């Protein structure tokens, strides 16, 4: 089987919906879980879905690849589609029909393809878990001596030393400062994305509580305006640049 090319992706229009859209969710599960020729057809159609979604994802992240050639992309797409299909079939019994089956299937391929691209992007890069080396601001200076911008950074650094464990600091620095993708870090540490995200969540909760207590952030329900521009914490993806060179 070959990967779906970008041109083939682009040719998919509302006027020519994929054949698989005509198959209902229940039909998909029954056909895939059954036997005989109908199952073989369903498996082939499912693989086509996986190829399409994997190709979509790899092309989105293609600039991050060490080898972005079409041939290399096709290899990654095929591998991701195969692995995603295996993962999906292992969870077929959990499909509840809350979305279209095709949408449910796509997410498996997208996850697998994105994870693979990130892995390839970092495969020759060493990940170092380092502690925070930002100088600690003297705590006796008090919040009134901190201005916005760099001084807030000093307050955050000080809070990181006060309320985080060394492990929490290292995870936060790797993910949010050094830009190591969460999948890559999880793989290197022998853990998973969910566990690292939980650590990151705990880090943020502790830091926000500390900075709120010290007057640098407004509480979630506080009526007074925030002291600093960071209080509203605009949307910033922590490893937004981690998927790109």
């Amino acid at each position, binding site marked *: 089987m070959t990967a779906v090319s970008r041109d083939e992706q682009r040719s998919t229009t509302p006027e020519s919906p994929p054949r698989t859209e005509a198959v209902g969710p229940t039909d998909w599960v029954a056909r895939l879980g059954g036997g005989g020729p109908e199952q073989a057809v369903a498996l082939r159609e499912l693989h086509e879905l996986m190829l399409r979604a994997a190709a979509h994802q790899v092309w989105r992240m293609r600039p991050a690849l060490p080898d972005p050639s079409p041939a290399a992309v096709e290899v990654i797409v095929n591998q991701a589609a195969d692995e995603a299909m295996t993962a999906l079939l292992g969870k077929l019994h959990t499909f509840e029909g809350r*979305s279209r089956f095709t949408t449910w299937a796509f997410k498996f391929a997208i996850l697998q393809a*994105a994870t693979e691209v*990130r892995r390839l992007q970092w495969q020759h890069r060493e990940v170092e878990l380092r502690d925070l080396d930002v100088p600690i601001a003297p705590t006796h200076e008090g919040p009134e001596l901190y201005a916005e911008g760099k001084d807030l950074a000093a307050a955050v650094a000080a809070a990181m030393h006060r309320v985080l464990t060394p492990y929490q600091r290292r995870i936060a620095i790797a993910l*949010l*400062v050094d*830009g190591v993708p969460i999948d890559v870090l999880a793989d290197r540490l022998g853990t998973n994305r*969910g566990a690292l995200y939980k650590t990151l969540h705990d880090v943020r909760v502790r830091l926000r509580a500390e*900075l709120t207590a010290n007057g640098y952030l407004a509480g979630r329900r506080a009526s007074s305006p925030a002291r600093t521009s960071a209080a509203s914490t605009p949307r910033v993806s922590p490893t937004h640049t981690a998927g790109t060179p």
Partner: protein
Amino acid sequence: MSTTPHPDPTDLTPRHVSALLQDTTPWLSCEECFERMDTYAEAVVRDPAHTDEAMAAHLRGCAACDEEAQSLVQLLAAQ
């Protein structure tokens, strides 16, 4: 083999600070995010103004899940 880039020791940039202080409550795990991603993406395609507070909080705090959710929305929207 290259190593992770080391920023200037004093350079905890505003972007880093914002990422460190991102409010990711209400809590939603990556596993739960993946579970919801298909229905979330379909809802967003149907109504771009669709909101899901827990999903939004998670996607603000997890770049990997955010990339994948955006990709799924884009894929569905293109159909």
